[in-house]
């Protein structure tokens, strides 16, 4: 063992722990300086309250925060803030000063570099409000067998809230985009879990065509309020219909790229799936992966909550939402006989492009017993949700299998 290494180990003696215990502490051979395995595993009864989340939300992880809504909490037409899922990759920034917050646009395919304060964005560009569905690429991951690693989302990593901001295209055009522009990438102010200030947590993006759509926003408000810290305060990119990880939070920079953005979590199995179906548990070479773009068609039953018991002969009202990434949902059906027969239900048009659509119906059950209600949406291209789990992929993305609830007629 070298002297250097010995000194390094000496430095590992944590002062705070020292004062607590008055003992020499050597954690382990390779832990970096300043690191302390303190368990701030603060999942207590107050966590949801602290996050201003509904008590029935499920905490999947408390560092980083990953919180989802059980399906019945998604019943509102516009998802309230306390029922919006949280998917953080790192730690949100601290001590945010809204007055000095800026957004910089630059990159090899930007004609110039420009920096805007929030006030400038609000004053210089026309403001728009849209209802936009945001779904985590891993929503439904818990359905995959064998298990895929990452947060084990059920149905609830989806929401549709009302975002207010300026169009990304208006801002990009004011800066100027070169003809060779291919992609945009974002950078946010969240910090990496390792504590290394130089390490980027996540920096994803979309092709320039998606960035220039009307509904692609630089948003500072959601449901008429400031964006909550967990959801990207004070500025968030909103790119609906795609894995929500492209809607960068705590936004401070956008780069206009002349190639596919190569930021953190744009590679490997991050938000990428094999080009062709592989067997469950299988592998594909890195070159055979594609970046997930539009999310697939999906729906959720938000009323009643699963487990409802109803009296024989009674009619049951059912409702929920359906969405299809960049597309519209064209048809919605339910089945109460495990998919043997399907009945069409009434489906509303979206409030605007990329908003989820509301559906509702009533059903009568033929006799007493255990039933499952299955819900199936079909998109504008005629592609429907599968009844069983779709193609397995290593990181467990895109599980859009039909949502089911259990009903007992007694």
């Amino acid at each position, binding site marked *: 063992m070298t002297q250097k290494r010995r000194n390094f180990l000496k430095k590992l003696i*944590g002062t705070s722990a020292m004062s607590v215990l008055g003992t020499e502490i050597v954690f382990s051979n*390779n832990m*970096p300086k300043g690191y302390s395995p303190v368990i701030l595993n*603060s999942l207590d009864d107050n966590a949801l309250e602290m996050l201003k989340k509904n008590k029935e939300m499920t905490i999947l992880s408390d560092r980083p925060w990953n919180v989802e809504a059980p399906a019945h909490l998604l019943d509102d037409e516009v998802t309230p803030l306390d029922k919006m899922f949280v998917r953080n990759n790192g730690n949100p920034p601290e001590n945010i000063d809204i007055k000095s917050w800026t957004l910089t646009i630059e990159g090899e395919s930007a004609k110039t570099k420009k920096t805007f304060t929030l006030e400038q964005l609000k004053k210089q560009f026309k403001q728009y409000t849209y209802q936009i569905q945001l779904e985590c690429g891993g929503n439904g991951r818990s359905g995959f067998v064998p298990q895929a690693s990452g947060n084990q989302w059920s149905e609830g990593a989806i929401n549709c809230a009302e975002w207010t901001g300026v169009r990304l295209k208006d801002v990009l055009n004011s800066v100027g985009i070169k003809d060779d522009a291919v992609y945009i990438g974002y950078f946010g102010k969240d910090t990496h879990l390792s504590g290394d200030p130089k390490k980027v947590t996540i920096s994803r993006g979309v092709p320039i065509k998606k960035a220039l759509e009307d509904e692609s926003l630089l948003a500072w408000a959601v449901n008429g309020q400031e964006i909550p810290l967990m959801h990207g305060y004070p500025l968030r990119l909103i790119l609906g219909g795609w894995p929500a990880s492209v809607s960068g939070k705590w936004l401070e920079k956008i780069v206009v790229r002349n190639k596919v953005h190569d930021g953190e979590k744009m590679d490997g199995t991050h938000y990428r799936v094999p080009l062709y179906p592989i067997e469950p548990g299988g592998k594909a070479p890195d070159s055979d992966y594609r970046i997930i773009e539009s999310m697939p068609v999906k729906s959720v039953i938000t009323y009643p909550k699963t487990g409802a018991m109803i009296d024989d002969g009674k009619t049951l009202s059912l409702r929920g939402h359906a969405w299809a990434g960049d597309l519209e949902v064209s048809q919605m059906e339910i089945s109460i006989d495990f998919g043997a027969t399907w009945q069409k239900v009434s489906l509303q048009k979206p409030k605007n492009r990329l908003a989820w659509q509301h559906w509702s119906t009533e059903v009568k059950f033929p006799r007493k017993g255990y039933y499952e209600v299955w819900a199936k949406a079909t998109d504008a291209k005629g592609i429907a949700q599968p009844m*069983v789990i779709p193609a397995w992929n290593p990181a467990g993305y895109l599980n859009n299998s039909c949502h089911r609830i259990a009903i007992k007629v007694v």
Partner: protein
Amino acid sequence: MKKIMLVAALLSMVYLASLGKITPHPYSQKAIHADSTKGLDPETGLVIAKELDMVKAQCTGCHSSKMILQFRASREGWLERIRWMQRTQKLWDLGEAEPVVLDYLSKYYGPVKHAQRRQPLSNIQWYKLNK
């Protein structure tokens, strides 16, 4: 100086953890190995076993133990995630702790066989169909 002294470190961790109350995540109850008669560590929801101290020291600094509790995999599967964190997330070389951590993870958080809606097809005899 190869030996790792953990006792003191852990005492400090327990002390600091006692500042906050922890409820085990629902996934931590999911398919925990029958060996877990010793129960769950109240700070982390992890199964109490001889390797626990090492696992807590190596694995709970950056993120909550819930990132671990949500996952089930074979030794190879866990090793693959550790290598991924080393490649991309600044996880250090675990050195002699690696087999200890892997013993623990694969023993208490090994793969679970469960059917969801349909079993995956098994015992497939692959063959080439001519014509």
